[in-house]
């Protein structure tokens, strides 16, 4: 194995790829020192490429199969065989496409309000779907998970833990009260709630650190091994 400093050839598709990826990696890291033209160049490049990527994938996976192809097919069926039924189904196909096209009304001030119809559908859809989903997983399931351990209290410690959990949940919920001043006895409970919240925030931060460092290990391994060949 080549132990020299640079072991990747620039003149193959893979080798050139590794070179480019490495240089861009360094360009992004240069931001840590300070903002500079090289970072700005790679930032602009990343934005352009990623939007291009999004455009192509959205076209291929959504617009073509869900909008253009069905409408094209509908047109050919309607003119080929005709009949009232095919006209109805064609109009049905046109609704979402028409709604999508309404988005372009934004460019014409007079009709700009029409794009709100599509937005209203979009937002209504999200709001309606989120209500049962949140009731289920954010409220009922959390209550269940809090009280279920009380069915299986078999030791002093499991009781202590269940009480720690219970006290934490109740005090955090009190913290979120909006219409009551956090003073007096109530204030003491809400302060307990903030203690729990701080422990959660600290723990979450600490727990995530490992994964974040793994990302850096990944990038540095790429630079040192795949590009420079310093690690065998």
């Amino acid at each position, binding site marked *: 194995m080549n132990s020299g400093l640079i072991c990747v050839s620039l003149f193959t598709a893979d080798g050139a790829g590794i070179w480019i990826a490495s240089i861009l990696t360094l360009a992004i890291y240069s931001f840590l020192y300070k903002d500079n033209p090289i970072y700005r160049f790679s930032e602009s490049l990343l934005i352009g490429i990623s939007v291009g990527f999004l455009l192509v994938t959205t076209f291929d996976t959504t617009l073509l199969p869900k909008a253009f192809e069905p409408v094209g097919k509908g047109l050919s069926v309607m003119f080929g065989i005709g009949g009232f039924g095919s006209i109805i189904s064609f109009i049905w196909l046109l609704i979402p496409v028409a709604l999508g096209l309404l988005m372009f009304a934004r460019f014409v001030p007079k009709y700009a309000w029409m794009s709100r119809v599509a937005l209203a559908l979009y937002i209504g859809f999200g709001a309606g779907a989120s209500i049962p989903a949140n009731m289920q997983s954010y409220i009922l399931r959390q209550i269940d998970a809090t009280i279920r351990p009380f069915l299986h209290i078999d030791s002093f410690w499991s009781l202590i833990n269940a009480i720690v959990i219970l006290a934490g949940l109740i005090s955090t919920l009190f913290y979120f009260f909006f219409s009551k001043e956090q003073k007096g006895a109530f204030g003491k409970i809400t302060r307990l709630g903030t203690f729990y919240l701080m422990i959660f925030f600290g723990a979450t931060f600490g727990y995530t650190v490992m994964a974040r*460092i*793994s990302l850096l290990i990944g990038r540095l391994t790429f630079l040192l091994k795949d590009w420079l060949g310093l690690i065998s």
Partner: protein
Amino acid sequence: MSIWEKAKTLDRRIIFLFMFLGVGLPLLAKIGLPVSVTDDVRNVYNYIEKLEPGDIVLVSYDHDTGTLPEMIPMSDAILRHLFKKDIRVVGMALRAEGNGIGRQNIRRTSAEFDKTEGTDYVFLGFRPEITAAILGLGTSFEKVFPKDDRGIPVGELPLMNEVSNYNDVKLVISVTDDDTPVYWVNYANARFKVKVVAGLTAVMATTFFPFIDSGQMVGMVAGLKGAAEYEKLIKTPGRAARGMDAQSIAHLVMIGFIIIGNVAFIMRRRGK
């Protein structure tokens, strides 16, 4: 301005530099921080250690590229152990992406030990339908994999002439990021009594404790830490040991800075 005041407005680039070195240096130079070996990993090592040269082990690559950084050090360590002991390896994949990963992994590690494809190891390729594939191998490897990954009929491979079903395999190792080992346990182990070992991502480890307790699995190697333990057992520290070193040093750097920050904070308060 006192040194404690300066600490308050410390240029964060100094922290960046230390983090960079804390991760980069352990990757470059082996440090070899102590790694304590858990029983689950030691059991895997011991089981393989007791095998005879020439025995056959099936390694299945049941993960995708997303978890590659965590899985590859593990597969490397286990394969090195197998090849060092002259155990023969049959590779396969139950995930499409695992096919490319497994092929590269086996060819690369086998090259370190001058092994020949076809006699010392084979790579059979990928089969979808987990249950069907695992059960099928119990009857006939050839039925499930008529040809190897290169398109050579298995009848022409000396190694595969000795493998007709699980009876000829001493161990199945499933390297995975999901619960595929459950299938190996439920179908290959329960029905055909072949021993099963899981190589897992760290987050999946808890899922498999019951199987180890019940003796349905020999053991497991979980995450970068498990791989580092395995590297320690085979006495060839590699990527996992370095990764763990880098993790630990980076954590210590962070904790060090937090301590400095707090000491400075207390000193500033006293000064007031």
